[in-house]
């Protein structure tokens, strides 16, 4: 019972933070709200008893990604004081229509489908050893490829962002 109430609280918080990210007039405020949204999803992972993923979410998204984004905002001379700016482009009506439509469709589909395994059951937890077992044995090749991908992305980012002589 208590978990349910907690869940609902966090769900509302997440939605609020996300709305803040996309509707905020200030770039820095959007970044801060993003942190909140990402953290909220991490808490959701905890509710689903997938502790490993919750940890990874906090670490990587909350740690690395948000830092990178704030860094980029600084480099591109975003106003750090958070004064309102003109951040919405000319496609706003399309965005509204599309977003609303997408939401309606997805919610409609997910609610109307008959999910198997009586879903009111407790969510099965996913312990870390299951994850590691599956990750390294069944999905070994994708794992290695993902690491190669990271390497390539790293090198690519360095090459793209470095300063040439005389710049």
């Amino acid at each position, binding site marked *: 019972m208590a978990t349910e109430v907690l869940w609902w609280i966090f769900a509302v918080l997440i939605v609020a933070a996300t709305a803040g990210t996309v509707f905020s007039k200030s770039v820095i405020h959007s970044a801060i709200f993003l942190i909140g949204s990402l953290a909220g999803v991490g808490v959701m992972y905890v509710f689903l008893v997938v502790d490993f993923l919750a940890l990874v979410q906090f670490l990587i998204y909350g740690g690395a990604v948000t830092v990178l984004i704030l860094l980029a905002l600084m480099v591109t001379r975003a106003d750090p004081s958070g004064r309102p700016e003109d951040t919405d*482009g*000319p*496609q706003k009506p*399309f965005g509204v229509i*599309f977003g609303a439509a997408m939401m309606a469709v997805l919610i409609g589909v997910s609610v109307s489908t008959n999910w198997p395994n009586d879903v009111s059951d407790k969510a099965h937890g996913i312990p870390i050893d299951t994850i590691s077992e599956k990750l390294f044995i069944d999905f070994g090749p994708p794992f290695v490829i993902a690491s190669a991908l990271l390497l390539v992305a790293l090198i690519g980012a360095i090459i793209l962002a470095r300063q040439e002589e005389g710049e």
Partner: protein
Amino acid sequence: MGADQAWILVAVPAATFVVLALFGRWLPRKGDWLAVLGVGASLVLYFFVLHDLLHQRDSLVNAHGYWSIAMDTTWSHVGNFSLHFGTVVDPLSATMLGVVTIAGTLITIFSIGYMKGEVRYWWFFAVLMAFIASKLMLVLSDNLLLVYFAWEGVGVCSFLLIGFYWEKRSATEAAKKAFITTRIGDVGLLIGIILLWKATGTFNIQEILNAATTGQIGHVYLFVALMFVFLGAMGKSALVPFHVWLPDAMEGPTPVSALIHAATMVVAGVYLIARLLPAFEVVPAALLIITIVGLVTAILTGFMALATTDIKKVLAYSTIGQLGFMYIALGCSHPGAAIMHLMTHAFFKSLLFLAAGSVIIGTHHNQDMKQLGGLWRKMPITATTFLIGSLALAAVPPFSGFWSKDEIFHGTTAWNGGWVTFLLGFAAVLTALYTTRLFIRTFLGKPQDQEVYDNAHETGPIMVVPLIILALITCVVGFTVFNGVGRAMGFPGGFTEFVFLNEPERFSMNWSWAAASAAIAFGGVFFAGWLYWGNRITISTRLAEWQPGIYNMLVNKFYFDDLYQAGIDHALLGFSFVISWFDRYVVNDTGVDGMADSTRFGSSILKYVQTGKVPNYALGIALGAVGLAIAGLVVRG
């Protein structure tokens, strides 16, 4: 060397052609002696073949008195279709072989004198050899496909030789005209051969004849196929309406006119029809058509010959007329008469042409009667031989033409009503008329052009000797129609017993017929003599004043050439106008340009999608994803 190896007769001139064509330029005397050797070798080998044929008669002759020696090998085959190379030596082909080799040898010797100093001397003899090889192949082959190959071969050689002086525009035009006109006939021949093949499954002549005579081919189908074959014969033999090419073909050197357009190539059609005559007999309507075409040709060309002043053109028209006679004989189911007339005509017509060539050389390239006259004093040997040839042509006894023409007259009695005989007699009168006119105006009377007369001289022995030999042959070859003469020479009988269709026909001298045809001949000769003696050429001017329409019609050769030219100008070029319109507006403007324009138009509209703005592209991605999702839902149902 027996009749089995008759193909060697073809191989020797063919090899000579190859050697001359490749090396003729550098041979001593440009290789003319090699040509004489080539065709002479064929002549000698021919006698071996003939001897072998006659020798084997007793063992091979069948109940009807017919025999042949055949050789056949399969060249190659593709699936069910096989190509054969085969020869058949029987009385008919033996006669033709003799004509071609004898006339060919004499004319080749004559050419050495006639073509002296001309350009491309070696090429002339090379093509002459190629022609002789093709013609011998045509006569020897046992299947229609090989006949067609040889048919085309002689056509090509004729084209090359007519256009020998290709620096002259008129010569190239004449060569083109000859080739195109005969081509139209050749297409007909090919269609006919294919139709016969479709009906019988073979090209072999003997098998086709068996199929036709035993009724395996439907009569209407057979009639159509044979008419197409006759079309080919009409083209090659220059029968009306294909006659337009032969007078123009006189642009070629005179030996060419003698060999090709008098003795051998133009009679290829006669030979082919004679070979296929058993099939023609099955559909008598075909024979009637052949007879009518022959009659029309003989009479029309007789008139045209009366209106021409070029001596070679008169002989050309005369050739066409005599070919008409041969076809009349074929139409009366009398191949013996037709082939006999072919043989006598080959000799006396080539004699006449060669003599005309002698006149041309002797008068330094003058061949118009308006400038000749009185030449018998200056060129007696030529004049005498020309006289013998003319008398043979006019069918004056006892020269050869009389006997063969008499045979044709005899054959026309097969047709009821005598109308064929009457018209044939009329054509014979015309023949006598123009022949006498030709002789008188060229050799007798007063010279028309004094300068030409003064410079005229008799030609050298190398040209005169073949003339004399041909004249001698012309005098005597007519007598082969007699039974006794034939037997004495080793043949089973007279000419018509040697070459026949169903039964050998023993010649019997029908004195009333003979007298009648002799009377016609003499009558024609004297009438023309009276008209033209003393150069009373005012005949033509009086005719021009009295009936200018008829005169113009005769001079313009009955307007055949103008008709054809108008047809080409209007029909062909009009059709090409339609085609060019189609090409320009449909194919080019709509097809080619249209595609480019519509692509350009489409891209000019689509280019506005590339706005360069990232949010727009993001929207595009989103829309695409949605579209796919909807499609997936729709497919899923």
